[in-house]
């Protein structure tokens, strides 16, 4: 070993040092369980999506059991046995003949052979209505975009008529229709999702859900006896292609606590990015995973001037 050997050894040791490496860990193993997803609203049948949970590393599509026994009970008394439905897109769910009602405690039981039974309970909360929504034509602005389109912007005030003292669980969603009149006829693009902006505080307390076409309003938004949500609707359209926004649909939901907590926990999961701080998923399905919860809803249509 000559005099240079020790420094070279040190240098080599440093070169081989790596900051990231592949490891194999024993993750918490959970048995496969039934997944129950159902959000129900007044006057609508219960629709329950049933699938099975998967190991984290399973890259296959979710498994939907061929046979499942799905029943709904009302106040603990059997109400209906749901039937299997396959929609036009090939999605499979179970649907009831009976319709859900506000304020009634419901429960669902799902049995799939070979897996633990899954049970859950939920109800539809009383609807908290909004005061009439108005669009002031004078408040509408249009800004040209560099691709030739126009950006229509106008304020919307969503004011709750009687804000409850607690459990202020609400959500909204905006859609709009655009008509295209090219002289040969009128074509309408319906239900386009409407973008919005707001002040920083408001935006920080809105949760644009990835799992549902819905914007969840954090219950803390209503602190200080605030009863109004003010946002700016933003609709981009192309006048050169004879587009014109025609109608705005404001969907307003009053959510049950189970609905609210479940979707809030999904939103707080983060993206599994390094250093993110995910929260546990809220689960109200005993023996399984998922969410069985109700909401009440109303959709207002506003004509755009």
């Amino acid at each position: 070993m000559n005099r240079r050997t020790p420094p070279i050894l040190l240098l080599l040791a440093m070169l081989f040092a790596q900051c990231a490496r592949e490891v194999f860990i024993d993750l918490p193993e959970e048995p496969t369980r039934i997944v129950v997803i159902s959000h129900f609203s007044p006057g609508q049948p219960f629709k329950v999506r049933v699938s099975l949970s998967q190991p984290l590393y399973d890259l296959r599509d979710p498994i939907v059991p061929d046979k499942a026994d799905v029943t709904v009970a009302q106040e603990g008394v059997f109400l209906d046995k749901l039937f299997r439905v396959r929609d036009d897109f090939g999605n499979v769910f179970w649907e009831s003949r009976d319709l859900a009602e506000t304020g009634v405690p419901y429960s669902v039981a799902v049995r799939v052979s070979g897996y633990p039974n899954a049970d859950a309970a939920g109800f539809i909360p009383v609807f908290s209505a909004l005061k009439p929504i108005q669009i002031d034509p004078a408040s509408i602005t249009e800004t040209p975009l560099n691709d030739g389109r126009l950006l229509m912007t106008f304020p919307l005030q969503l004011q709750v008529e009687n804000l409850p003292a607690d459990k202020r669980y609400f959500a909204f969603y905006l859609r709009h229709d655009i008509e295209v009149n090219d002289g040969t006829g009128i074509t309408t693009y319906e239900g386009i999702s409407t973008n919005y902006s707001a002040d920083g505080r408001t935006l920080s307390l809105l949760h644009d859900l990835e799992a549902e076409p819905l914007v969840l309003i954090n219950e803390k938004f209503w602190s200080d006896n605030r009863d109004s949500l003010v946002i700016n609707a933003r609709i981009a359209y192309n006048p050169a292609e004879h587009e014109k926004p025609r109608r705005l649909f404001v969907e307003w939901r009053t959510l049950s606590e189970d609905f609210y907590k479940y979707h809030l926990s999904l939103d707080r999961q983060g993206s599994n990015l390094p250093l993110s701080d995910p929260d546990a998923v809220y689960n109200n399905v005993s023996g399984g995973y998922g969410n069985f919860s109700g909401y009440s809803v109303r959709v207002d249509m506003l004509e755009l001037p």
Partner: protein
Amino acid sequence: MVARVKALFIFPLLCAAHFAVAQQTLPQTVDFECENCLPTEALVKLSRQTGVNIVFGDRFFGQCERMDIRERGTPFFTVLEKITACAKVSYKASGNQVVFFRKISKYTLSGYVQDAETGERLMGASVRANSDKGVGAVSNEFGFFSLRLDEGEQKITVALIGYRGQTLHLLLAGDRFATVKMRPNISLPEVVISNLSGTDSRLQSVESQQNLPLSEMRQLPMPGGEADLLRLAALQPGIQTGVDGVGGLHVRGGNADQNLILLDDVPVYNPGHALGLFSIFNPAMVSNARMWKGDFPARYGGRASSVVDVRTRDGDLQHYRAAASVGLFASSLTAEGPIVRDRSAFLVSGRITYLEPWIRFFSKRGDLVNFSGDNAGYRFYDLNAKLNYVFSERNRLYFSGYFGGDVFQNDFEQLIIDPEGLQADRYRLNTDWGNHIAALRWNNVTSKNLFANTTLRYSRFTYQSRLGLDSRFYYANGRETALADYGLLYQTFIRDWSGKTDFTYYPDDLLTLRWGGSFTLHDFRPGAISANFLQPGQSPISIDSLANLLDNNEKLGADEAEAYIDVELHPTKNWRIEAGMNASAFSVRNTNYRALLPRFRLHHSGARGWSQWVGFHRMAQYLHQIGSFNISLPFELWVPSTRKVPPEEVRQITAGIGWQRRGWGWQVEGYYKNLDRALTFLTTNDALVTGGAEDASGWEDRIAVGRGESKGVEITLEKTSGLTTGSIAYTLSNTTRQFPEINSGNVFPFRYDRLHDLKITLNQRLARWLDASVVWAFATGNPITLAGVKYTHQSPESDIKREVVVFTEVNGYRLPSYHRLDLGLNARFASGRFSHGINLGVYNAYNRYNPFYLYVDSRSGVQGRAIQYTLLPLLPSFRYEIKF
């Protein structure tokens, strides 16, 4: 001396003993005359005349002159007092007898202990009178001491580790003010002795017990060879850090923002560089540092977990000196000297790093997310300055300043090939953050036993990042479209202006009183983002991407006032009572908070080195650091308590037992800590895509209020003298948190909860000029939130599918255990007026891949595959230092 004492008792004149007859009571009045008499003659005459047995010593009246006395019908005691007025005596009458005693006066010896060579004031020196009573005191953080002694000749011993002991012979005939100059004992090995005396609680002051052993700091192997104060603190039991120091100090289950870190009495809001790998405390500047783990006195307020009180050196009043050091990561230069000899001095020190080659090296090899750019660069710097001016023996003025920060930049370019053309993205991030600190301090010895310290303070922490994204698409036909072109400026800061006055009063050697108050004006800017559209009327893509990033120009002011009283009482030689009360008020946005925070600690020093103690402490905190990642990173926001964000509150109970003798010691301390109110920030994912710059709009409504609990036992075994020294510090603890909004309201482990935490340090003196150090640290792995199961969320009414990873429990999984071995070799030698130091070391000697973060690679399809990120692999260290 012994002969004199004998004389006092042998020569008492039992005057007129033969007159001790039947007369049993003292006369009411007497007629008495004595011309040209000494007091002794007058007393004898009075005794004979009245038949009263008068006992006295003739030495009592050695200073008196002859006198004439003529009294008619004067009360007997008045006559006695007139005769003896010239002497310091008192008497006691009983039956037919009057006994005179010598009245012993007490005087105050006060002053400073300072380094004889540099004039540096020395804290923690024991000043003890060598008498039967063993009266003693310990110099405070400014080197001041005060003790009450009997008049007459006194032998005073002054001792401090690392200095030659001083013995002073004083004739006390009045109050004395003295400056004790101590010479460093260069022949002493640099060993650490925590307590100077075994049983005398008066010499185990509250101040000196909490000292961090700075001599170890330069010996222990640390990354890059950079001696680091906070890393040294982290070797104490009960103190956790994030992996390899990232994430701040977590003392007994507290959050990193719950540590009051003071630099020359000024709060430091970001004490770390490089996300916590290094502290801002340049070792060349540090004079002493003390740390309290929650059981801190009432004079410290505003934080809920711990206090780290760092004092910088004053600068040499007599000689010019300089020191320079060069290491693998950083270099520093220090200069000091007199401006006017023995009157004023300066001390300037700067440190700068050259980490960029290392960052580039590791970012290329390590594929780290944040450092993935082609031109990643990082550096930090510190600049300390201190001036002091001695107005008089009793007045001294100091100015100290600190200016330091971190700079990170990352340019990233990527090309995405598309069938229609080419997309070119250029991402630029420039980030800088740092502290500015200043203190103007006036030390005043107001009276012989009253010390005052008045400080004007300024502290500011700022974080700023500039983010730019330029994304363009180049079509095959040569056409070019701007997809995104914008810049973001993100700023957050906290700024304090404050004034503080502290008084220390030493009424006698049994009691020390401290009281004082402070007033602070806080300014906050919690996370302001401003977006700059470089082109008016952007494309829809950029508008959408910025939909959630709006101006937040919120600025907040808050006032904080604090008053305290601390009592340190030594009722006997073995008992010490520390009791205090901290009263504070905080005002923000018309919301006022007040708190009364009691502090109590009872300490007993028994025979043969044994000691026991119990304590109860209550703390409150009005300032909070809230963050996107909850690991105490610099861009996490400092915010005040408001109406919606209540102050954090902590109660802690401690009890311990210890033994220390002949260079060996051990102690066991148990604690229970209740975080009555703990805060955490409910983040959004925006922070992850903006490099941590999260719009803080609505922050008050995004804070969750919960509670926490921590309990544990800390065991320390140490050897503090001899050629081999070292310590073993073990902590067994459990820490939890509970928030209604998190983990479905269930209790979950704290992010830095570790059941076992063991730190072993060993120093071996190999030769007079050479020593070796070893550190081995082990800790239970950090909790992390992981999932083993997933499912797909899809409503029957919707086509949207969302993969849901079932995180069943927050922090329910443990990373692998943390352990590492550090080795160091330190050599010191002198040649002429130069002294040299060489430090060689290896951090993480066996290259343990300690996990900093674990990323579950679920898309790999391979069961259990994860990517583990390690911050510090094996790191050789080298540092050369020269002083002259």
